[in-house]
C-alpha cells in the first residue's frame, strides 16, 4: 500500500533529507506533501487525504506541539498518525506528546533504517503478511 505522507519542518534541508531517507528506505509513497510549519500543515490536512505526518517540534508560526494540540481538538489525531522527528525531544516533552496521541519519536540525526522501522511499525506494514 502506498502512503500519502506529510512532512512538517521549517528547514527545507530537513524536508529534503527526510524525503531522500524515505525513498532510500524503500517506503512505498503515493504523494509526499510538505509544510513549513503547523499552520501550513493544518491547511493541507483539511484539504488532502494524509496517511502519516512526520513533524518537527521547533517551528515558527505554529510549532509541532501546537499542531498536535489542534489535531487533538479536531479529532484528527485519532485517524492520522503523527510521528515527531526532532532534536528537541526532551523526555518530558515526548511523554507529553505521546499522551496527546503522538505515535512515535525519531531523534535527529536519523538513518533511513530508523525511518523505515518507525513507518512500518506505525502504519502496521508487514503485520498482516
Amino acid at each position, binding site marked *: 500500500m502506498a502512503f500519502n505522507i506529510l512532512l512538517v519542518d521549517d528547514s527545507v*534541508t530537513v524536508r*529534503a*533529507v527526510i524525503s531522500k531517507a524515505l525513498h532510500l528506505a524503500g517506503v512505498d509513497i503515493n504523494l509526499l506533501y510538505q509544510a513549513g510549519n503547523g499552520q501550513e500543515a493544518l491547511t493541507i490536512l483539511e484539504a488532502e487525504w494524509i496517511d502519516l505526518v512526520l513533524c518537527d517540534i521547533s517551528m515558527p508560526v505554529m510549532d509541532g506541539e501546537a499542531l498536535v494540540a489542534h489535531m487533538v481538538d479536531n479529532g484528527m489525531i485519532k485517524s492520522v498518525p503523527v510521528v515527531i522527528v526532532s532534536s*528537541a525531544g*526532551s*523526555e*518530558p516533552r515526548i511523554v507529553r506528546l505521546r499522551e496527546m496521541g503522538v505515535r512515535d519519536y525519531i531523534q*535527529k*540525526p536519523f538513518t533511513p533504517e530508523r525511518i523505515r522501522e518507525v513507518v512500518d511499525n506505525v502504519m502496521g506494514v508487514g503485520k498482516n503478511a
Partner: protein
Amino acid sequence: MRDQVVESVSATFLGVVEQLTFMFGEPASKSGVLATDDDYVVAHLDFTGDAKGWLSLAVPTGCVAEIAGNILGLEPDELDPSSLAPDSLGEVLNVICGHVIMAIAGKGADFRLGGPIISEASPEFLAAAVTSDDWLGFMLEENMVLLGLFTE
C-alpha cells in the same frame, strides 16, 4: 566552561557533526581562526526552559556549502548557496544544540529551541570569541570552526 562540560560538549559536537555531515573533527586551538584569511559565517540560536542560554557555530564561508552538500548528498556546485546552504547550517546547529543540552542538563531537561539566525562573522567578533571562555575551537576536516555555548 568547566573542564567536564568542555569534554561533554566537545564529544557531543564531534559525534553529531560526524553523524550528520560525515565530516570528522578534533579539538583545536581557537587562535587558529585568527591565522586564516577565510571569511566566516556564524549560526546562532537561543534556548529556554530548564536550560537557558545560547549556542553558536562559526564556520568558514566556503565550508557552508560543503556541509549542506554532505547532509543532502549533493555536490557543492549543485546547491543554491543563497538558500539551502545557510538553511543546512542552521539545521546542523539545531541538531547539535538539542544533543548538547541533553548532554549537559540531562535527558529529563525540558527545553525549547529558538530559530537559528545566520549572519556574517566580523574579524572583531572572531577575535572576541577566541579570548572568551564560552567558545571552543575545532578542526573539522580542513576547516577551523568555533563553537560557543553560554548557559545561565
